[in-house]
């Protein structure tokens, strides 16, 4: 019997359809169907200025907006041969990690609710709101930040921000203990999640799976360590790793990542306190400067020998490795942008970690993948 779980289904956490073939309570076959949220971001980008694409990136993955801004900005800066100032890099790292915290807490809330545990959803949303408050205090938005710019970030953090942020970090560290007590401390939780949705390391690599799913299979791969971008080589942190490759392992990896994120955020706050400086690069091309104005006609644009090139950047987004590929042919719009979404790939491997389990296992397995449909469909 084929059962359609979606597009409107409480398990999906977004707009996609999981077609499941079941035999009694057993899953025989699955076929994820995506594209219900395909908004053509790559096409719209072709008609936009480099900075204006940032507004699309925020909406591309709505739980990790600023990380996606970083992905895109990295590629665009490569393509335009611009380097952001040091302080901007530190700010980006801080934003990435705050965003990772927010995204993982959101994941925790949704995942545990799928298991039928209701309170943590509320606790998670409550604690996430604090991080969003922090974001709001310097970017002005809760989900859509529009904070990065090609060549830096829009503005510096306001005074007093670092102290507030430290307080929130302390609060969160206490809450993580509580989260663990609610989940790991509960025998029912362990019985439901142990040995579920197993995807071993070899399969993970073959299928291109990245992020916490891969790390839970014992592969300590993290772009922040392996291929440090921004200033990740200057902060201390450990890569979270587990070996069981099941749902519990993913839970443990994400919880550990949150603790490491707090660690990184504290380091960045210390750095930011002591190193004031500019946050936006000088000598930006006219059409990337703060006020956007009409460019002038195409002829002059070509005459002035704008830099050309193709940029590529990869960033360890909360869900996995996100990559952007920006082709710049010298116009004010990119010629082509292409984004690689980690969830897209993790979801495409669904057959390999779902078959053989039970209908009741679908929500925890899918929850442990941490699906954000915005970036799957783009």
């Amino acid at each position: 019997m084929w059962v359609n779980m979606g597009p409107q289904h409480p398990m999906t956490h977004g707009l996609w359809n999981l077609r499941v073939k079941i035999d009694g309570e057993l899953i025989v076959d699955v076929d994820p169907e995506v594209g219900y949220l395909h908004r053509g971001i790559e096409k719209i980008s072709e008609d936009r200025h480099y900075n204006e694409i940032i507004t699309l990136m925020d909406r591309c993955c709505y739980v990790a907006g600023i990380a996606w801004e970083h992905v895109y900005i990295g590629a665009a800066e490569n393509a335009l041969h611009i380097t952001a100032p040091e302080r901007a890099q530190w700010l980006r790292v801080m934003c990435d990690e705050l965003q990772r915290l927010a995204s993982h807490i959101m994941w925790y809330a949704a995942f545990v609710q799928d298991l039928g545990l209701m309170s943590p959803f509320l606790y998670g949303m409550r604690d996430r709101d604090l991080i969003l408050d922090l974001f709001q205090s310097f970017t002005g938005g809760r989900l859509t930040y529009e904070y990065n710019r090609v060549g830096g970030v829009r503005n510096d953090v306001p005074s007093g921000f670092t102290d507030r942020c430290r307080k929130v970090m302390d609060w969160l560290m206490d809450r993580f203990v509580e989260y663990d007590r609610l989940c790991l401390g509960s025998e029912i939780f362990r019985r439901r999640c142990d040995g579920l949705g197993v995807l071993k390391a070899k399969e993970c690599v073959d299928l291109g799976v990245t992020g916490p799913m891969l790390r839970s299979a014992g592969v300590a791969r993290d772009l922040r360590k392996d291929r440090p971008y921004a200033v990740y080589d200057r902060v201390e942190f450990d890569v979270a790793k587990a070996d069981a490759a099941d749902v519990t392992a993913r839970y443990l990896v994400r919880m550990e990542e949150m603790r490491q994120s707090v660690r990184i955020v504290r380091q960045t706050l210390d750095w930011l306190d002591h190193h004031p400086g500019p946050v936006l690069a000088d000598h930006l091309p006219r059409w990337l400067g703060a006020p956007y104005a009409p460019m002038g006609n195409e002829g002059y644009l070509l005459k002035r020998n704008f830099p050309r090139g193709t940029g590529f950047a990869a960033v360890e987004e909360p869900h996995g490795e996100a990559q952007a590929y920006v082709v710049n042919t010298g116009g004010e719009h990119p010629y082509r942008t292409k984004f690689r979404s980690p969830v897209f790939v993790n979801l495409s491997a669904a057959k390999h970690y779902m078959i053989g389990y039970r209908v009741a296992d679908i929500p925890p397995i899918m929850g442990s993948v941490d699906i954000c449909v915005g970036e799957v469909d783009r």
Partner: protein
Amino acid sequence: MATDDLATQLAPRAGANILAVEPFQGLTARVRFRPEGALDVFRAVHDDLGYDHLSMVGAIDWVDHREVFYIVWSDVTKQYLGLSADLTGDAPHIESATPVWPSANWHEREAWELVGVAFDHHPDMRHLLMPDDYAFHPLLRSFKLHEPEELEVKSRSV
């Protein structure tokens, strides 16, 4: 020089199909190859160079031809490598990478759907993002977007 090393390493199995190994912003290098020998190149890159993880497959419409690019990652060298092939003709097509990297499946479906590049011997070529009866390839340059309402359509660059 990393590019030379790569070229020599690739030579035994795919030498004839390699057009160039060029440096690239953000990647170790980019290997340009002939689309006819795609599978050989993929095997060589996967087995000999150890790039066992396919990150991304994309296609670009350069009006006169179309380009397919692959980004692969090696856990050994911790590096990204780009592969790219230029496809010409009215019905551009290339061998599917799924036998070498199973993760190419959805990427290739998407590339076919959006840019209209066909992948031969793909196990499951269906529409992915668009409805099943969608007849266009929206990321072609000839496919223009428009404002849904006929309100102030002002030109962006005067």
